């Protein structure tokens, strides 16, 4: 009886391992860049345009002769918005696929799960996630391109102060970006003289926040609502705000920097303010704006190829890719250490999120000027006045 068990055990093990060994072996000429993104799950909203952008521009670079004369090969895995999967795919990229760099980590959670691995493997990692804790404290091999949650909170608070708002209700998402955003927000209240009169949370997959908003609505002295989250949650929040008839100004974070948000929230999005990259108002930027050419080109290319509107997230992928490409060109090699040093010496790189100036102490390279204060007017992004 057990003879069969042994036989089947061995056979199954061999089969399982064999199926993995069929993972193809790549030619030595290509430059293998690894990526793990959240293309499915609650963060698909962010990961999907990121993947599309990477694929689109890598194809473009390859058509124009490649990087240092070699074609770039993108090895990509979908972590399904789960940090544990991100961890195992990062391992696979580093140890099995032998990539020279990783551009990815859609969510803060996924990024943090991969950081110990890239630090140990000593491989450059450019993250596409928002939390400031990714680059603070500065880690040797970890970079990021999106503006931080702290910057978003600062931008929002300074705008609120300008409008004489001081009593604010915070409604944040419990997942990564929202949670770290909340932490940063709480830490900044003193500096800007803001009082948080309410502090509610919602889950990334919540379809109804009327309960939390009802509590916020009945808070005395309420002057504004600040929503910190990414994906479809904040859109539901807007709809519920409209339903409950909450009339105070509403601010969002750059986690909703996508046309999707306006589409989902519909008329409820009107009047919302948020700090966002110039990318979202590409056509409205003055001609002498340093970002004008980059964002207009990106917008057109993305619209043409994918027939959908651009989002800040796809823009981050563009920034990460070209930041890396620029560093490799300057280092004239894909050697990990040389590239790392080249990344740290990047100055004046014009991306979709702003103009980057990195250093060994600043692995992001953006300052508050990268953020424009935008407002949703007539169903489209516009400058807030």
């Amino acid at each position, binding site marked *: 009886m057990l003879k069969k068990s042994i036989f089947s055990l061995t056979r199954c093990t061999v089969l399982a391992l064999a199926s993995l060994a069929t993972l193809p072996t790549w030619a030595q000429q290509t430059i293998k860049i690894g990526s793990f993104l959240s*293309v*499915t*799950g609650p963060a*698909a*909203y962010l990961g*999907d345009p990121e993947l599309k952008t990477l694929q689109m521009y890598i194809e473009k670079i390859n058509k124009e002769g490649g990087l240092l004369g070699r074609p770039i090969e993108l090895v990509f895995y979908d972590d399904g918005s789960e940090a544990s999967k991100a961890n195992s795919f990062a391992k696979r990229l580093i140890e099995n696929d032998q990539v020279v760099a990783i551009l990815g980590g859609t969510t803060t959670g996924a990024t943090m799960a991969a950081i110990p691995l890239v630090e140990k493997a000593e491989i450059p990692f450019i993250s596409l996630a928002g939390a400031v804790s990714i680059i603070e404290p500065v880690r040797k091999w970890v970079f990021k391109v999106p503006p931080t949650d702290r910057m978003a909170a600062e931008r929002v608070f300074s705008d609120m102060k300008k409008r004489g708002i001081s009593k604010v209700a915070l409604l944040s998402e*419990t997942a990564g970006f929202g949670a770290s955003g909340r932490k940063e927000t709480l830490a900044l209240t003193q500096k800007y003289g803001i009082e948080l009169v309410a502090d*509610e*949370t*919602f*889950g990334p*997959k*919540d*379809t*109804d926040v*009327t*309960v*939390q908003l*009802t*509590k916020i609505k*009945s808070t005395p002295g309420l002057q504004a609502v600040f929503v910190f989250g990414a*994906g*479809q949650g904040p*859109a*539901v929040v807007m*709809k519920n705000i*409209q*339903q*409950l*008839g909450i009339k105070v100004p509403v601010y969002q974070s750059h986690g909703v920097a996508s046309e*999707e948000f306006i589409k*989902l929230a*519909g*008329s409820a999005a009107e009047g919302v303010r948020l700090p966002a990259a110039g990318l979202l108002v590409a056509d409205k930027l003055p001609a002498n704006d340093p970002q004008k050419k980059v964002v207009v080109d990106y917008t057109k290319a993305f619209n043409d190829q994918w027939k959908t509107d651009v989002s800040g997230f796809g823009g981050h992928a563009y920034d990460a890719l070209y930041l890396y490409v620029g560093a490799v060109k300057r280092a004239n090699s894909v050697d990990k250490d040389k590239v790392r040093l080249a990344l740290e010496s990047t100055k004046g790189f014009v991306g979709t999120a702003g103009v980057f100036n990195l250093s060994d102490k600043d692995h992001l390279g953006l300052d508050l000027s990268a953020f424009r204060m935008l407002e949703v007017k007539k169903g489209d992004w516009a400058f807030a006045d």
Partner: protein
Amino acid sequence: MHFSQFLQFLFSGLTVGSTYALAALGFTLIYNASQVINFAQGEFIMLGGMLAVYFSLQGWPLPVVMLLAIALPALVGILLEKLAIEPVKGAEPITLIIITIGASLVIRGLVQVFLGKGTFGLPPFSGDQPIEIGGATLLPQSLWVMGVTGLVVVALWFFFAKTLLGKAMLATSFNRMAAQMVGINVQWILLLSFAMSAALGALGGILITPITLTSYDVGVMLGLKGFVAAVLGGMGSGLGAVVGGLLVGVLEAFGAGYISSAYKDAMPFVLILFILFFMPRGLFGGQATDRV
């Protein structure tokens, strides 16, 4: 101030509770006919919403959209029964559970591939001007949800109590062999139960989408909570399913409002553990006897 807050929570709870009630009814229907716990029930709800979005994006009028978005999931339900449940008649319950889980993955995966990973909404059936009642606001769509659910429940009651087919279904759930012996085509009843269950779920999905939006993965939590509601009410009791669904929705809203919004999703499960400890057969489950 406090009463309007209470009312607001009540409205949210009843609205989402109606969806849970429809899901729970679906679970109960299938369970009664086949003893299978259909973990793909949530996906039927998702299909209703997603298909409705897809068809309305084609520009077709609402009645057509709704019809298709209910009929197609019903078809999927029939396929599920034919391809996955029938071949393994008599298998262990846990095997059937895994099959339905596999089916839910297939359905979810196919929607993900063909309809995309985005989130979508539907325009509300009769506008989105909130109605003010006692200081709380109610969306017109909520009235649709609760109203249609109520109609469905009445229709089902009528079906089971007054029509021959309905009585045949009840007979099958009481004793399959006896039903077969009096000439009831048990196979057809099984197919019908899956189709009806899917249709119910899909209807719930369509109704709720204008309020809560839909995407390829909304089925998981909805299905789970529908299951909780069904068990709460007593597996196999239609009335229990409806009461269970509404109760779960309302208590979830109150729990989130008065205790902690972070644990909103956990409320139904805490509730059920509580109830099961004191009433092991659920609210309307009745006494059970085991054949020894």
